[in-house]
Every structure is written in C-alpha cells, then in structure tokens.
C-alpha cells in the first residue's frame, strides 16, 4: 500500500489528522449530506451492507434510508433515476459499485446526463455526481479489473475526476457537487487503504488543474489515479540514478489541463505517460497526441507510454502484475526517453 507521501506539505500551525483514502471519501460524503439537504447517496449496498468497499459504512445509521438509499441491482435504472433527481432539483451522489458494471448504465450517462443540457438548448443542467471504484490489482480477473477512464474522458458534457491523494479524496466531492454538470469520480480500488495525514480542516479542492506532485527537470511523467504512486516510486528510483523526473497528476481527466502538462514538457523536453488503461485507445494516447500537437518542437525524444497489456486481466498474481504498469517498466520507459 502506498504511503500518501505526495500530499501537500503541512501548512504551519494547521492541525493534521490521520486518515485513509476510504475515510477521506466517507468524510466528504458525510459533510455533503450534512451541508445540503438536497444531497443523498444511492447505489447497490451503500446502506445496510456499508458499501462494497466500506466507504459508506455507518452513514445509514446517521442519515437514514431515504438519504442512504440501497438500490436493487439495476444500474441503468438507478443511475438514470439519479440523473432525473438532479433534474428535479436534488444533488444526488450515485455510487456505481465499480466501473466494471458501468457499461450497464453508460447509455444513461452518455445519452442523457451528458447531452441533456445541449439537447435542451441550455434549459436544463444535470448536477449529478457518479462515483465508481476502478482499477485492477486485487486478483479479481477479467470482468472485475477494468480501467475505462478514457471511455468517460471521451464524452463531452461531463467532467471526469480521478482523486489520487488523500486531499483529493477528501476534497473533490464537494467541488463536484457544486458543479452544475454531471461529474464522474473514479476511485482506484488499490488506494482505499492508503493511510496518511491531512489537514484537520481539509475541504473542497479545485478540480481544474493538474498538479505537479514532484518537481524535476529531466523528464515529465504524466499519470493519474492509482498509477500516481507507482510513478512517484519510479521517480525516486530514477533520482537515485541522478535522473530528476517531474511527476504530474492529471487529477481531472476531462477537461484535461493542457497548460500544466505542456509547461512541464516544454521544460523537460521528454515525457512518459503512465496509464492503467489498455494501451490501444488509452488516455495515454490522447496525452501523447496533445503533447505532440502542442510541444512537438520542444521534444527531444518520442513520448513513452506505460499502459496495461492488451489482455483481459488474468487472475494469478504474477500475470496480473505483469499486465499492469509497474515501477520497473516506468523506470525503463523513463530511461528510454532519456536515451539510456
């Protein structure tokens, strides 16, 4: 489990508390529910079970079954109902247990949530927040290990977030709920147990900017979500070889913050993108294409991609590990970008 070492340095005088990614998300949900009577959460097993990943544990007792709403196994139905409730003046948080089940409600997200404002000529906005767990690494095999962030990042009309740090886990939800348009939040399953400290008064964070999690001059490593921590570990390893990598956490996958990426690449002149999606058609491809469009004349080397192998994720640990982006592959790609 990664330690949350990239969290913002403690501001002097601000008390800090120990937390985990899971607790940070829960605190954000609890705060949202307490603040705004229009907010409620619905999804499979968010209530009595306490959430598949225990994120919503305890909330049913605190807020009751109207606002912590267990749904039947009906992804299209309850996600569509969340969209409708948003249209009707609520501020729903819909939990789709994992991205693996979200194809079942993708029509509602693409053809209703994302298009409704446009189709109605701007009459209606859809302020729904949809949370999903994402990612592989728990040996859950081919149907339960998807990283389909790029599918969602392809959709005009929605915003896509990937909190990778405790601060973002704690802070992105509030900002997402304040957004008048649909927001999809991807929580990487490998991060839920990540422990660390955050400011006791941590709250809403911006969702417009990518963040430089580590400064460096030699190359830019661009990533998001669960891969951030592997990338930071790779950067540490590279530092031991005297290579100073800059690590950019995209944070928001749609719309992408080109400015932060390009400013970095223009300085470092080399880039590697790390993405847990399958390589072909990955978000990494999009980032690479954008860098070429905007920084071609500054590039000293081809842009590398470290992605998931193009295979349904196998169950055995050694094969799953081999399929996913890992620190050695990131280090190797960085070296290659530097011609070493």
């Amino acid at each position, binding site marked *: 489990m990664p330690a949350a070492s990239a969290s913002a340095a403690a501001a002097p005088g601000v008390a800090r508390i120990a937390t985990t990614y899971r607790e940070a998300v829960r605190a954000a949900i609890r705060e949202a529910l307490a603040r705004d009577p229009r907010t409620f959460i619905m999804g499979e097993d968010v209530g009595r079970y306490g959430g598949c990943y225990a994120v919503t544990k305890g909330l049913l007792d605190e807020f009751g079954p109207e606002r912590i709403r267990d749904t*039947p196994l009906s992804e*299209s*139905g309850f996600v569509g*109902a969340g969209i*409708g*409730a*948003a249209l009707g003046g*609520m501020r729903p948080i819909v939990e789709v247990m994992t991205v693996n089940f979200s194809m079942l409600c993708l029509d509602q997200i693409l053809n209703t949530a994302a298009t409704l404002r*446009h189709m109605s000529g701007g*009459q209606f906005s859809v302020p729904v927040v949809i949370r999903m767990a994402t990612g592989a690494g728990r040996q859950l095999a081919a149907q339960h290990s998807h990283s389909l962030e790029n599918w969602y990042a392809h959709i005009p009309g929605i915003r896509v977030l990937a909190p990778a740090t405790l601060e973002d886990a704690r802070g992105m939800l509030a900002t997402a709920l304040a957004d008048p348009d649909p927001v999809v939040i991807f929580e990487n399953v490998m991060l839920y147990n990540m422990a660390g400290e955050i400011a006791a008064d941590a709250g809403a964070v911006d969702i417009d900017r990518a963040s430089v999690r580590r400064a460096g001059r030699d190359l830019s490593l661009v990533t998001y979500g669960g891969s951030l921590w592997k990338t930071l570990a790779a950067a540490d390893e590279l530092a031991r070889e005297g290579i100073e990598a800059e690590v950019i956490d995209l944070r928001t996958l749609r719309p992408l913050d080109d400015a932060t990426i390009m400013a970095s690449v223009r300085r470092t002149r080399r880039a590697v993108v790390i993405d847990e999606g399958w390589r072909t058609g990955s978000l990494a491809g999009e980032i690479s294409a954008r860098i070429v469009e905007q920084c071609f004349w500054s590039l000293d080397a081809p842009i590398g991609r470290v992605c998931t192998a193009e295979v349904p994720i196998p169950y055995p640990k050694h094969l799953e590990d081999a399929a996913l982006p890992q620190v050695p592959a990131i280090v190797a790609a960085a070296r290659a970008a530097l011609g070493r």
Partner: protein
Amino acid sequence: MSTAREAKPHLTRPHVLALLREMLRIRRFEERCAELYQQEKIRGFLHLYIGEEAVAVGVMQALLPEDAVVATYREHGQALARGVAMNPLMAEMYGKQEGCSRGRGGSMHVFDAATRFYGGNAIVGGGLPLAVGLALADRMQNRANVTACFFGEGAAAEGEFHESMNLAALWRLPVLFVCENNLYAMGTALAISESETDIRAKAQCYRVPSAVVDGMDVVAVEAAARAAVAAIRAGEGPQFLECRTYRFRAHSMFDAQLYRSKEEVERWKERCPIAQLSAWGRSVGLVHDADIAAMEAEIATEVQASVDFAEAGSWEPLSDLARDVTTPREAA
C-alpha cells in the same frame, strides 16, 4: 377501466371543444410538418403522432402545471397538449435558435422548462429512469407533483422498463406510466416482440396498479388518467395506463410499411379520435359545424403563424457551436 375512482370527466361544451381543439392542433401541426419535411425544411427523423392524439390530450387533462412530463421521439403531441407554444415548437423543427431547444434538438428533442417538459428522448426506454428520478426528487422535496412518462409498447421489452417499473413501485414514487400501445415498434408487431402481449400483466408483476383504455377515445383516456393521477396524489404509488392506439402514418419518414396491410390501417382510421369525438359531440348537440369551422380556421392561422415564425427565425451562429455543452460558470 379497472380503478374504482374512475370519474367521468365533466363533458361540458367548453371541455369537449377544448379536447377537440387540442387534438386538431396536433393533427394540423403534424400534417404541416410532413409537408415541410417533403420541402426539406425539416430534416433528420420525424415521427408523427397522427392517430394517437387522444392519448396525449387525454392524459394532459389530468396534470397540473407543477407536474412533469417525460416523452419520446414521437412527442409533438405531448408537447402541444402540455402547453409548449407552437411557435417555438415549429422553430425547433426547423432547427432555428428561436426553437424551444434553441434548435439544437430538432423533432426528437423538444424540451421546455416552463411546462416541465423533459424531452424528447430518442433512446427507446431511456426516459423511464429519468421519470423515476424526477418523481423521486418531488417526493424527497415533499412536493405533491406527478411525473407522467410516455413510452411505446416496444419499450416494454427493454431492460430499462423493468428496472424503472421496479424502482418506482419499490419506492412508491409518483409516476404515471403511460404506455402508448400502437401495436408496432417500427415494423415489429407486439406478438413478435413480447411473449406476453397483455401489457398490463407486466405492470402487475411489479405490483403497479394498471388500467387499459381505448386510446382512440380521448374522454376515456382522460377519465383513466384522472383516476390514476388521483391515486398517485393519494400516495398510492405509481400507476400504469395502457392506451390502445394506432399510428396512421409511417413510423418515420423512411418506412415503406411492409409490415402491415393498408386494410388494417384503414380500419383503424375509421376510429380516428378526432372524427369520433366530433361525431359524438354533434350527435349530442355539444359540437356544431360552425365550431369545427372556426376551430379549423383558428388552428390554420396558428399553424401558419408558427411556420412564419420558424421561417423568420435565425440560425445560431457557428461561433456558438460549443455552447451549452457544459453550464457556463459565473466569473468568480
């Protein structure tokens, strides 16, 4: 009709004339749309409601202004009957920015905030979860509103129908499900798409009370809708109304109608909801030839005015292409 509360609508002369006028407005509006399609003023898909007017007009009688409506791509009738103004509706058909959806939606995506008209959905079954959500929002905010959700019998085969019926029933939400059973989904007859062709049996299996009504009889539809809406407002949860109707025209403008006979169509045309109400009205002395003539003249004027409005409308500038993809943020 199955519910006990069924109350015959009060068939005063003004009410009968109002029902007739609403149906006729839809008919004449759409006839003109069909012409405009031939003239290539209207493009894309155009699904006419002609023949089914009694359903939308009858159901809308039961709704209050605060209620919500969710419809399909065959929604001009619902829009007009709900009170969406004809001028912006016709401008929408043209794609002009004076259209009710600023021209962005066209025939299949009519929206109108003023009348709580939530589309205009071209994904079969896609509106049902939305209606459930709107009703949930009303319930959670303690508003006594009803959401009327229209869909075709073809939609009943979709998984979203199943999920939405169950959710609405489970949570006892104020949804009026209105199934417009016109016997065909494009070219697919009900018996080709459903193992159980009695649509009401489906509603029952979610414990949603249901009624079946002659969808060519606007008075019957109104009565059934009023009963259902009364039950919903009384807190009895969702209600289901199957309206047996028929579309007189092709599914859309690209349909050779190979799947049904001319005779069948002609038989149903004899049950035209407008002709029926008009004939009955005359027979009981509530409607006179002069009424019809006056109505036709007024509607012709209204339709023509809507065409003029649409013609005079403007195209949204290209510089606005990316408008309304997301909601503009207030400058901080």
